[in-house]
């Protein structure tokens, strides 16, 4: 099954090549540097990894089964290799991703993908850490991975994901699928805070059933190139999806958030909140879209993208989109871009705060509004520390 999918994907990639700027999703993001990366050659052995009873470790995108031995909740977790899966529905990914050539490249290249399924009614209060270790044999390697997370009925799971990389240039092509069954609560947080020259391109597909509470929180403080696709399918009524993203860009960083939320059923709510703080020559792209299908009445959806430009050379491209085919809905979006407000700086200076401190206070206030919305309190703590060191560093 998986081999057939891989074969089709490889054919698709070979026919289409790297994405060009003519594609809507790649209009402001160049793929020209992707060429300099080659597929990673062999698996890595004997590297030192740290894990504790709350962590699940992935090494170059492959689940480290040893780490599960210590895992406190291993009895609630069922693990399979993707090769063992024959269920088409479990493997199915978003139609839109299948049209993406980089997604197809990832599918064709990944080795040893895992299927992690949390059993019914697993309520885990502690936050599970997913640690992604990346090691490499040489420079300029592309590491592709594909993993599926299945949250079964009645479960409550919180996960924080972090990447741990050596200071090398690596291209990380990460594909994930999340299935949330009826009446689940799934909180997913990400903190990318490495200083290496890494490229990260990820495709995250969330399949949401009935009465689900989903939250996706993410903070990126330094990653050379980061493009993330998020697609959420709200297929049954009563679900709620919240996405909060804070990106802090410096130097020549490129940050791109591509979010699509499909309201396919009635009585669902969705909320996107993306803030970018951009210094030096950094660039941020926001491509958000909400599609409310015919019959998805009583939808409540909101998109907000705010960009704070701190330097003359920073760029922000914002493209919040709404496509609505149902009438009894309430949808809105807002986008603002601008520099720090001079009046606010003046106000603070008039109270004896020096110029640079005043700036820092305002940047922090701007960024903290997103952090306060994060649903994982431990991620809030991590984020505040990262924010402080970004502002002062």
């Amino acid at each position, binding site marked *: 099954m998986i081999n057939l999918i891989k074969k089709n994907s490889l054919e698709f990639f070979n026919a289409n090549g790297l994405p060009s700027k003519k594609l809507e999703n790649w209009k402001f993001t160049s793929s020209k540097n992707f060429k300099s990366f080659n597929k990673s050659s062999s698996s890595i052995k004997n590297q030192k990894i740290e894990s504790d009873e709350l962590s699940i470790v992935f090494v170059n995108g492959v689940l480290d089964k040893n780490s599960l031995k210590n895992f406190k909740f291993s009895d609630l977790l069922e693990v399979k290799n993707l090769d063992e899966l024959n269920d088409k529905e479990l493997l199915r990914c978003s139609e839109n991703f299948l049209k993406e050539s980089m997604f197809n490249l990832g599918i064709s290249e990944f080795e040893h993908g895992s299927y992690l399924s949390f059993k019914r009614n697993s309520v885990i209060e502690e936050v599970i850490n997913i640690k992604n270790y990346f090691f490499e044999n040489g420079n300029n390697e592309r590491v592709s991975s594909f993993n599926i997370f299945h949250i079964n009925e009645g479960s409550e799971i919180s996960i924080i994901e972090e990447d741990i990389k050596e200071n090398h240039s690596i291209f990380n092509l990460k594909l994930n699928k999340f299935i949330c069954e009826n009446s689940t609560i799934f909180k997913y947080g990400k903190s990318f805070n490495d200083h290496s020259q890494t490229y990260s391109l990820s495709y995250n597909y969330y399949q949401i059933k009935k009465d689900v509470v989903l939250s996706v929180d993410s903070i990126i403080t330094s990653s050379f190139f980061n493009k993330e696709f998020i697609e959420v399918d709200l297929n049954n009524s009563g679900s709620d999806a919240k996405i909060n993203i804070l990106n802090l860009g410096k130097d020549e960083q490129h940050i791109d958030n591509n979010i699509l939320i499909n309201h396919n059923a009635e009585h669902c709510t969705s909320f996107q909140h993306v803030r970018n703080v951009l210094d030096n020559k950094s660039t941020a792209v926001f491509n958000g879209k909400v599609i409310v299908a015919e019959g998805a009445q009583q939808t409540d959806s909101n998109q907000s993208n705010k960009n704070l*430009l701190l330097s003359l050379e920073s760029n922000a491209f914002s*493209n919040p989109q709404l496509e609505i085919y149902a009438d009894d809905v309430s949808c809105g*979006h*807002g*986008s*603002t871009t601008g520099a720090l407000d001079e009046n606010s700086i003046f106000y603070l200076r008039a109270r004896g705060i020096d110029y640079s401190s005043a700036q820092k206070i305002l940047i922090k206030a701007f960024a903290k509004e997103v952090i306060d919305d994060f649903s994982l309190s431990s991620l809030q703590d991590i984020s505040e520390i990262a924010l402080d060191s970004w502002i002062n560093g």
Partner: protein
Amino acid sequence: MVDKNQQVIDKTLEQEYKYGFTTDIDQTKFDPGLNEEVITKLSKIKNEPKWLLEWRLKAFKNWKKMSEPTWAKIEYEPIDYQALSYYAAPKQKKNDSLDDVDPEILETYNKLGISLDEQKRLEGVAVDAVFDSVSIATTFKDELAKHGIIFCSFSEAVHDHPELIKKYLGSVIPATDNYFAALNSAVFSDGSFVYIPKGVRCPMELSTYFRINATNTGQFERTLIVADEGSYVSYLEGCTAPMRDENQLHAACVELVAHKDATIKYSTIQNWYSGDKEGKGGIYNFVTKRGTCLGDNSKISWTQVETGSAITWKYPSVIMQGDNSVGEFYSVAVTKNKQQADTGTKMIHMGKNTKSTIITKGISAGEGQNTYRGGVKILKNAENAQNFSQCDSILIGDKCGAHTFPYIDVKNPSAKMEHEATTSSIGEDQLFYCNQRGIKLDDAVSMIVNGFCKEVFEELPMEFAVEAKQLIEVTLENSVG
């Protein structure tokens, strides 16, 4: 309640198009087809200078290389460009006085409520009437000439003011700009030309009235307005077409040039025939409109009320080159039955302290699809640029759609950019509130929709505002969301 809603919605959508009559007159019409010969023949009939013919042929050459744009959110049967006739005109030649105009045509304009008879006009609006491909009459010409204002048909301007045409034609919309603009550049038949000299405030509203009458023709007119230093002009445009089963193509170009301290206000009420309930017939409206604020402190303001056309593809834009220049875009777009509108604007900030405002109101009913597509670009040197956009949509009925695609690119940190959009149906609570106070359902809807559009209507000149308000009322009478 649901049944009742359905009834009133159905009733609304059955509203007839009152301008759908045709006029029987003798006319000259080209055989269908498009090639260099047709363009040469067209140019010859109009007795055009050689440079203009060359310009047309060059545009045609480019057009052949281009392909029809597909990015817009509209669906339509492919247009067979060879099946269209590229020139249709009443047999009579250009008229020196209104007495020479075919009475049938005058009657047509009277029926449309546009009186070309200067004596009878009280409102003080000068009109250039374009019937199919040619300009029939221009009123108040002498009066305007006293101020040095040139207001005439495009063909006349080519002969009488070749230097101005040569200088400004294609300066805002190059012949190679896009598929429909290139087609228009190759085959445009007539249109209006306005020149306001330095420091003159145009004493009356100028207006063009477009009417498609002939079958199987495309209408390709071109409007060029130049406002010289410190001048002001307000320009109105209106359009109607007869009810026909086939789709007709309208691909116009409008170019505006505002020099230092000049202001141009351009208002449109577009009410082309929109097709019947099943979506049969109607005008395909592919229009390129663009203005350049060339000088400092200049201002261009677009206001549009779009209620007609089966397909609307239209993005009036402003390029703010001069420092402190201002661009504005106010729009109300209504789609019902199977109408599709993909409309919006593009604001390009180049100069310092430039400011743009975008306010759009979309109303979708029946199976109509209404799309706002806008672009705001703040370029590197546009210090302290400001933009405010607000795009609201109302949905009436569960089969229609409203979409918003704003593109916002900011390359200067001193810019202030704000965009807001909301989409909703007419609130039950709003209707209930009105009902409770003895206001009938229909009146309440009309009141709420008019209130919703008020910000845009306020920008229209008086005469147009009344017409626009009535148009919306007629279009949406009896609708309940």
